[in-house]
Structure formats: structure tokens, C-alpha cells
């Protein structure tokens, strides 16, 4: 039984046709993610920032599963939490000068950054609220991984091959840039 189906079954026990359980799960995930993201961009310890990033990425994975995109959610855990965060921790360790208590941005720059962030949030949020008033997500079943595979290897085969070449180029590029001569 999938997580989505389990949550929907839970709903029918609790409240008939509304989607209470899904909304509660969303609320908890969203709250945790936003608090962790705010801590990530304000903490002065670089290692703590990486660990807060793990919480946000796990929350995004939970959101994907809530939306019925289970394959993307699992890939998120594998690639982001398994690989990218470890890469970040290695980067932090190799630049030891920045370890521990760290820089403080000057207050003028920080004030401008807060202004830009709030403006981005207000403009994007306003546009979103204006455009998608009451569109609802009520997916009957989670998307099938087989369907994703079929679509990638038929309709999206050219972008897929381009991504594989891009990964190869990035691999070679990273080695060339970081290599000691």
C-alpha cells in the first residue's frame, strides 16, 4: 500500500470526503521546512547550515510523496541527501579556514537582501494567488514509475542524452578545475 493511499484511507476514517490528513501532513512539513530554511540562511556555523539543508531536502522529498510523485521523492533522497550534502560537507572540511563560527554580513547588505527576499515573496505570492485561485490537487493514484521511464525514453530521449553528456562534462570539468598541478 502506498503512502498516498494510506493517507487517503485515513481520511475516509476521519472526515468523509475532505482531505484532512493530507493537509495536516502538508502543514507539518511546510512549517518544519520553512523554519529549517530560515535557520540555514541565518546560522553562523557552516556545518549547522549543511545539516539544516538536510532537513529542508527531506521535507521536499515528503512533499513529493504527498503529491504522488514517489519516484522523484526517492530520487531526491538518494541524490540530494545521499550525494550532494556529503559533497557540501567535504567542501566545508577542505576549506577549513571557514569552519566554525563564521563571517557576519554587513548590516547594510543584509537589509537590502531582506528587502529583495520579501519583494520576491510578495510579488510571486500575489501572482500565484491571483492565477490559481481554487485549483485543487486530487490525484486518484500515485504516478507510475513505469510511465516515467517510458516517457523519458521516448518523448524526452534527446534531453536525457544531453543531460548525460552534461554530467560527463561537469565531471571532467570539476577534475580539471580542482586538480593540483
Amino acid at each position: 500500500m502506498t503512502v498516498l493511499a494510506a493517507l487517503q484511507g485515513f481520511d475516509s476514517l476521519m472526515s468523509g470526503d475532505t482531505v484532512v490528513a493530507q493537509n495536516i501532513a502538508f502543514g507539518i512539513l511546510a512549517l518544519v521546512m520553512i523554519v529549517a530554511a530560515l535557520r540555514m540562511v541565518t546560522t553562523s556555523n557552516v556545518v549547522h547550515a549543511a545539516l539544516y539543508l538536510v532537513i529542508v531536502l527531506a521535507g521536499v522529498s515528503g512533499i513529493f510523496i504527498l503529491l504522488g510523485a514517489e519516484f522523484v521523492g526517492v530520487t531526491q533522497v538518494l541524490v540530494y541527501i545521499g550525494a550532494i550534502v556529503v559533497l557540501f560537507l567535504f567542501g566545508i572540511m577542505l576549506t577549513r579556514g571557514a569552519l566554525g563560527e563564521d563571517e557576519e554580513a554587513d548590516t547594510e547588505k543584509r537589509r537590502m537582501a531582506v528587502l529583495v527576499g520579501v519583494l520576491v515573496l510578495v510579488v510571486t505570492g500575489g501572482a500565484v494567488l491571483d492565477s490559481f485561485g481554487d485549483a485543487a490537487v486530487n490525484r486518484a493514484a500515485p504516478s507510475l514509475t513505469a510511465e516515467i521511464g517510458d516517457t523519458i525514453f521516448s518523448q524526452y530521449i534527446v534531453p536525457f542524452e544531453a543531460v548525460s553528456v552534461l554530467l560527463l562534462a561537469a565531471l571532467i570539468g570539476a577534475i580539471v578545475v580542482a586538480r593540483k598541478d
Partner: protein
Amino acid sequence: MLLNQFLLLAAALFAIGVYGVLARRNGVLVLMSIELILNAVNINLVAFSAVRETVGGEIFALFIIAVAAAEVGVGLAMVLLLYRNRRSIDLADIDQLRG
């Protein structure tokens, strides 16, 4: 669930990521904030995919995950090179190209 709640969550994460990119001076922290922005975009893509009940958006999210992995690899290599040459990854110190 409304579509809006996912889009607003993504907008909030995006704004926090923009703040991080602008306010931080440590190169590694700037790269982490860029990951936050890319994840906000992924939430949007998957949410639209769920509304339309197609897999197109999920496939684009997978592509973005792959591109983000490549970006972090190259970005961290550049930060390491910076640290090796200057013993600092403070982005405020990098101003050779300033006119």
C-alpha cells in the same frame, strides 16, 4: 489539497534562497542557498504535474536534480580552487574583475 499551498511554500523557499545568495559571503553557503532555490522550482514542477495528472513535470524535476548535481560538483571545485589560491572563500574579497 489546493495547488496554491504548494506554490506558496515554493515561493517562500525561493525567497529564503534569494536572501541567502545575497546576504552570505561564504562561497559554500551561497551554493547551499542555490540548492534551496532549485528545490523550490522542483516543488512547483511536481505540483503542476500532479494537477494535470501527467508525468511531464516530474521528468523535468528529475532533469533539474541531475543538473543540480553537476552544478554543485563544478561549483565546489571552483570554491576549492579559490581557497587554494587565496586562503579564503569570502566572496566579498573577489573583486579582480571590478572596473
